[in-house]
C-alpha cells in the first residue's frame, strides 16, 4: 500500500506525467471496445502536438527542450486524440491537434497563458469546420473494427459498417420515439456486462479509476469532478419528467464525455478557475450548460462548448470567489492600507 502524498507533485512535469498515467486505464478500455483507431488517434495527435509546440517555440526563439520535456503538449495531444471520433481520418487529427497547440496555446504566449482549454478549442473548431466527419465517424462498440478497417478509416475511407450513433445520439434521435422499455432492447443494453452498458460505461469506469487516482495523488482536487457530475445529475434528475423521451441521468453521466471531462478536461488548471470555490462554480456552470446544449442544442455532446463558454467566465469567477484575506473584512475589496 503506497501512502497518499501530503502535497501535490513538486514538479510541473510530474503533474503532467501523472495525468498521462491516469489516462492509461481509459485508453485501454477504449481500445478494447472501440478498436485500434484510438491508438492511431493518439499516435497521430501526440507527435503533431509536439511538432506544433516545437515550431511555435522556435518561431518565438524560446528554448524548446524544457517545454517539450514538461509533457504539456503530449497531454494536450492525448486529450484531443481521445476526444475525437475513433474512426477519424488522419488529417482531422492533425488539424485538431495542431490548432489546439497553435491557436489555443501559443497565440497567447504558450504554457500557462492561454485563457481557453486548448484541447476543447481544437475539438470545437473541428466540430464547426467538419461537422459531418466529427459526428458520423464514431465507432460502434458492437462492431469493434480490426486493424485493416481502422487503417482504412484512418486514411479517410469511412466504413459505415463499423461506425454508428453514439449513446447520446441514440437518445436524441432513435430512442425519442421509443418507450424506455423498447429502448432497453437495443443490443448495447442487452449485451451489458455487470449492468454496465456495452462499451460506453466500461470506458467511463476506466476513466473514473484514473481520475480517482489523480485525486488520490493530489494532482487534482475533488471540487471540479464532483461539481460537474453532481450538477449534471441534479439538473437531469430535475428535468427528467418522462422516462420515455428524456435521456436518463446515468446516461448523461457516463455515456458521453462526462467522466472523462470531469477528471481530465475541466481540471486543466491554466484555463480553469483557480480557487477551490471557483473550481466548483466553474464545474457547476459547465454542468448546466452541458445539459442545456445536449438537450436543446444541435450538438449531441456539448462538453467542449460548455467548457469554452465557462473558460471565458473564468476571470469573473476568479474575481468573485477570491477568499477573504486574513486581516481584511471583505473579500472583494481592492487594495488595502500600506504596511
Amino acid at each position: 500500500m503506497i501512502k497518499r502524498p501530503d502535497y501535490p507533485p513538486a514538479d510541473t512535469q510530474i503533474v503532467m506525467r501523472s495525468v498521462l498515467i491516469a489516462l492509461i486505464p481509459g485508453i485501454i478500455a477504449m481500445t478494447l471496445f472501440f478498436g485500434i483507431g484510438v491508438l492511431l488517434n493518439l499516435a497521430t495527435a501526440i507527435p503533431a502536438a509536439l511538432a506544433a509546440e516545437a515550431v511555435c517555440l522556435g518561431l518565438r526563439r524560446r528554448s524548446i527542450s524544457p517545454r517539450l520535456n514538461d509533457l504539456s503538449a503530449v497531454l494536450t495531444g492525448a486529450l484531443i486524440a481521445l476526444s475525437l471520433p475513433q474512426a477519424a481520418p488522419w488529417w482531422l487529427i492533425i488539424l485538431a491537434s495542431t490548432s489546439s497547440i497553435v491557436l489555443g496555446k501559443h497565440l497567447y504566449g504558450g504554457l500557462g497563458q492561454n485563457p481557453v482549454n486548448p484541447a476543447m478549442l481544437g475539438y470545437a473548431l473541428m466540430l464547426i469546420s467538419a461537422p459531418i466527419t466529427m459526428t458520423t465517424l464514431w465507432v460502434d462498440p458492437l462492431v469493434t473494427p480490426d486493424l485493416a478497417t481502422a487503417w482504412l478509416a484512418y486514411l479517410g475511407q469511412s466504413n459505415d459498417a463499423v461506425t454508428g450513433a453514439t449513446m447520446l445520439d441514440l437518445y436524441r434521435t432513435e430512442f425519442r420515439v421509443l418507450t424506455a422499455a423498447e429502448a432497453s432492447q437495443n443490443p448495447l443494453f442487452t449485451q451489458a456486462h455487470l449492468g454496465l452498458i456495452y462499451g460506453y460505461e466500461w470506458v467511463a469506469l476506466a476513466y473514473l479509476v484514473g481520475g480517482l487516482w489523480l485525486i488520490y495523488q493530489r494532482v487534482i482536487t475533488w471540487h471540479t469532478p464532483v461539481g460537474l457530475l453532481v450538477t449534471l445529475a441534479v439538473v437531469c434528475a430535475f428535468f427528467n419528467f418522462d422516462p420515455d423521451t428524456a435521456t436518463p441521468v446515468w446516461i448523461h453521466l457516463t455515456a458521453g464525455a462526462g467522466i472523462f471531462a470531469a477528471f481530465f478536461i475541466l481540471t486543466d488548471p491554466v484555463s480553469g478557475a483557480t480557487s477551490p470555490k471557483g473550481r466548483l462554480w466553474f464545474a457547476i456552470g459547465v454542468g448546466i450548460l452541458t445539459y442545456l446544449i445536449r438537450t436543446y442544442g444541435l450538438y449531441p455532446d456539448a462538453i467542449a462548448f460548455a467548457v469554452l463558454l465557462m473558460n471565458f467566465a473564468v476571470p469573473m469567477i476568479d474575481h468573485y470567489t477570491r477568499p477573504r484575506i486574513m486581516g481584511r473584512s471583505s473579500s472583494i475589496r481592492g487594495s488595502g492600507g500600506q504596511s
Partner: protein
Amino acid sequence: MADYQIRRCERQLEGGIYPETHKALSTTDSCVFVDDPKRLVFPIHFSGGGPGEALVAVGDTVFQGTPIIKCQSGITHVASRSGKVIEITDHAITHPSATKSASIIIEPNGLKDQDYLDPLVWPFDADTLRNRAIEAGILGLGGAGFPSFKKWSDGTQTLIINGAECEPYLTADDTLMRVDTHSMIRGACMLSQSLDIKTIIIGIEDNKPEALEAIESALKESRSDCFFDIVLLDTKYPSGSERHLVWLTLGIEVPTGSRAIESGVIVHNPGTLAALSRAIDGKPITDRIVTLTGEALTAPQNVIVPIGTPISHLIEAADTNPDSLASIAIGGPMMGYPVTDFTAGITKTTNCLLAREIEVPPESPCIRCGACATVCPVRLQPQQMVFALKGGSLDRAVHEGLIDCIECAACNAVCPSHIPLAEWFRLGRFEARDKANDQHLAAEARERFEARNLRLERIALEKEAKRAARQAKTADALEKARKARKESA
C-alpha cells in the same frame, strides 16, 4: 512561584506547510562563546533602527558597551568588545541588498574593559524602560529588527513571547529559551509590570519539549505575579509569524496595514526580552545567539557571538573552511537571504547562518495549479499576484492583496514550476511602498503649490487694492490742487 498554565492551541493555522525541520542538526545542550574575532564590522546604516551616524572616529579606543552608532530612530549601537576603531569605510554587510555600506571596523584588543549603563532600580515607569531600551540598542532580535520600544504603549493587554521558531534549521530561540530562561522570564515580567500587563502568553511549537521544561522550572522559581499562559502550537510553518501567532493564541486577526500593537498585543522574541533584562542591569546588547547549521558545516551548533563578528569567523568556528562555500543563507531556508561576501559582520538580527548545497531547479511557466494558494497563510492567490507582477501591473498585484503578503515563502516551497514567488512579492512590496511614498510627496507638493497660489493671489489683490488706494489718493490730491488753482485764479 508564578501562576501558569499549559494548553494546546485550539486553532489550526490555515494554509502553511510542514517542512522538514532539520533542527536536530544544530541542537546542542550547551551554548558557548566563540573566540573573539580579529575584527568587528558595524554597518552604520544597516545595523537596525534605520540610517545612523558614527559616534566615534578612526583611532578612538572603545570599550565593550561604548556607544558607536546613533540611529535616526534614537537606537544606539555599542561596541561589542573593547578595542580600537581602525577604519570607517564601505564594507560588505549582512543584508539582502548585498551592497557595500559605510561601516565602522573595530579591532578587539582582548581586554575586558567595560562601559556599561547604570542599573535601573525597580520601580521604574514605561518611559524609563523605553529610554533604557534605546540606550541599550534593543531591537527585535527575531529577524525583522523593528525597534522594540515603539511597540510599548499603554493600554496593552497582552504580551506574547514568540517562541514558535517555525523556520526550519533554526534553533537559536530554542537554545536561548533553554540556557537563558531566567533572563527571558525576568525581562517579560519587568516589561509587563511597567506597562501594567497582566497576561503573558508564551507561544511555543510542540517540537521544543526541553525549552518548555526549562520555562516551567524557571516559572516555578519566579516570584512574579504575572500570569503565564503557555500555548503549545503545532509544528507548522509559519506559525511564528507575528500576525499568525496573535491569531493562534488569542483569536485576534490583526487588520491589514496595522501592527499587532494596535490590537493591544505586544509580540516579542525571547532574545529581545532576555536582552531587555540585561539592559535593566546596565548591559547593552553586545552578543547574541546564532545558529550555525546546514549540511555543509562540519560542526553545526549554536554559539554566542559578539555583534559584528565576520561570517567567515563563524564558519571557521563550525570547523569548516569558508572557501569551500559559495554562499551562505542568513536567517534560514524560508525567509533567509544569501550572502556571498563572508567578511560581512553579523548584526543584531542575524539569527542563523545556513550552509548547504542546494540545487535550484529551472523555473517553468505557472500553470495556475493553485498549490501556492492552498498553503498561503493569509489566503492570498499568489498565482494571480505573480501573473500580474510578471505582466508588469503592480496595481493589479496590489489589488490582489500584495500588501498583505508576509513573504513567508511557503508558496515557493510547494510551487511545481519552481517560481520564486516570494522574491517577486518582496520586490512588488518595495515598489508599492516607493510608489505610495511618491504619491504622498506629490500630494504634499500639490498642497504647497495651491497654498502658494492662494498666497500669490492674495498678495496680488492686496497690491491692487494699495494701487487703487494710491491712485485715489493721487486723484484726490490732484483734484484738490486743481480746485485750489481754480480758486486762486
